[in-house]
């Protein structure tokens, strides 16, 4: 598949959203709400879940599945309070030694008046700094769209895994085409140039793993992820914290 087709697959209306992954992979998910400063952002879901014998903190961008739910969840485009809720739950996870698993699926952080007034840039910046030194294992799984800074805001992780048809891009192909060539119709060409597919990002050392997608409801994918997340956590929890953090910094530091 070429880049344009993968972008379309990642955005497909019938593609499973984060809620399906949480249900399919974890047990006893308990959602926790609110950033303790301003409000609760339904575009980002967070909480505690059980994976085998241990508990993890799960943070996910949720686009919603019905028209009504999509509107409530703002199509997975978070406001600053969403990023602040995510950070609150990550700090909570650190305090209690729970690993963090995030599911990324957003066209980007929301561009709006309230988002600017409440410091969208500051909220994301703060997450980037704090996630880099979070003293528990962090895994980011890209399940659909990875829209720029809005995706990165919950994706500074020890490893980035990408579903086969997920993408991760500095700008949407449409945005890129209209800025560079004043022609949004050239988005397919921009999608190729931006090197945004899972395979491209493996080559660029941005992603560590590609997760195969199974036909018919993704059940096989969820089963596979359950195993692999468990193995990832077991391995990373063996590591001394300073080594874990050194490796995390190095993963990003080496990209030049």
């Amino acid at each position, binding site marked *: 598949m070429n880049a344009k087709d993968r972008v379309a697959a990642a955005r497909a209306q019938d593609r499973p959203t984060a809620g399906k992954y949480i249900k399919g992979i974890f047990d006893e998910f308990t959602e926790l709400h609110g950033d303790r400063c301003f409000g609760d952002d339904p575009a980002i879901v967070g909480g505690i879940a059980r994976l085998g014998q241990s508990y993890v903190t799960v943070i996910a961008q949720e686009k919603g599945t019905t028209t009504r739910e999509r509107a409530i969840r703002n199509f997975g485009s978070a406001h600053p309070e969403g990023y602040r809720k995510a950070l609150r739950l990550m700090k909570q996870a650190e305090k209690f030694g729970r690993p963090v698993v995030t599911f990324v699926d957003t066209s980007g*952080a*929301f*561009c*709006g*008046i309230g*988002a*600017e*007034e*409440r*410091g*969208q*840039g*500051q909220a*994301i*910046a*703060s997450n*980037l*700094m*704090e996630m*880099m*030194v979070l003293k528990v294992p962090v895994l980011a799984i890209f399940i659909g769209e990875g829209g*720029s*800074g809005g995706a*990165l*805001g919950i994706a*500074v992780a020890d490893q980035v895994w990408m579903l086969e048809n997920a993408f*991760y*891009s*500095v*700008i949407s192909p449409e945005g*890129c085409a209209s*800025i*560079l060539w004043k022609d949004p119709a050239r988005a397919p060409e921009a999608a190729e*140039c*931006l*090197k*945004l597919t899972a395979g491209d*990002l493996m080559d*660029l050392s*941005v992603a560590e793993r590609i997760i195969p997608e199974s036909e018919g409801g993704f059940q096989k994918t969820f089963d596979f992820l359950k195993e692999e997340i468990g193995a990832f956590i077991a391995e990373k929890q063996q590591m001394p914290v300073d080594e874990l953090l050194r490796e995390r*910094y190095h993963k*990003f*530091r080496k*990209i*030049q």
Partner: protein
Amino acid sequence: MIKGLFKKPKNDLEPSVSGRIEKPAEVNIPHELCTVCPGCKKSVFSSDLQENDYVCPNCGKHLRLNARQRIHMIADPESFQELWADMAGSDPLGFPEYEEKLRAAELASREMESVVTGTARIGKKPTALFVMEPAFMMGSMGTVTGEKIARLFEYAAEKELPVVGFTASGGARMQEGMLSLMQMAKTSGAVKRFSDRGGFYLAVLTDPTTGGVTASFAMEADVIAAEPDALICFAGPRVIEQTIRQKLPPGLGRAESLLKNGFIDKIVPRSEQKKFIARMLRAHRRIRKEA
């Protein structure tokens, strides 16, 4: 005329005919002598502007400055020592027309990348210093930009220097794709590690500071100052208008509204910046912490 009173613009974004801003009258003076202020649209003698640190004597508008002009204005005379001066932008993805754009940016700015890094003394206090260059692809952050900034914070941590940084950026540079986005995480990690070792970081946000730079090292300083009226935002006003199809409140994304909303510490006009930075450097004695 009465008919005109009832003519409604189609939406809030479309200006009514009477509300349209008139183009400033063409003034036939050689442009080396005169500059038209982008704020008040009046002609100003270039020599007056230069003497006034490129602040319009009529309206106080802070014009954009090149990195070297800023360094000259802020650093003690002869004190600036550049670091990593020969690092030039490259084209890691083989993006169409990018090589040409890089060469054009080099010519336009006479810099190799969108940031100048080094050490200097400001009011006799030694400091690490970075200044972004708006004339180089609008200060957009490529991999080399991120690399120089990360290196500067690592260098400052090792040498126990504070960091003073002037931001001016259109955000991540799309021609370098995800490698450019990753610079946000990389620089944030470098700032955090510097900060956790007790380092003091002062940022001065200048027009425009947007996108991936706002969402990383611009907003991560211990003290954040801004120039008057500077555009400081995550998404620019035009992007927001296109997204929500509403007219924006006046001043959204300007330094004054960020001050009001609690996201910056102080607005410091250009004429007072050197004094302000020197005072902040004196006030922050380093407390050494374990890495």
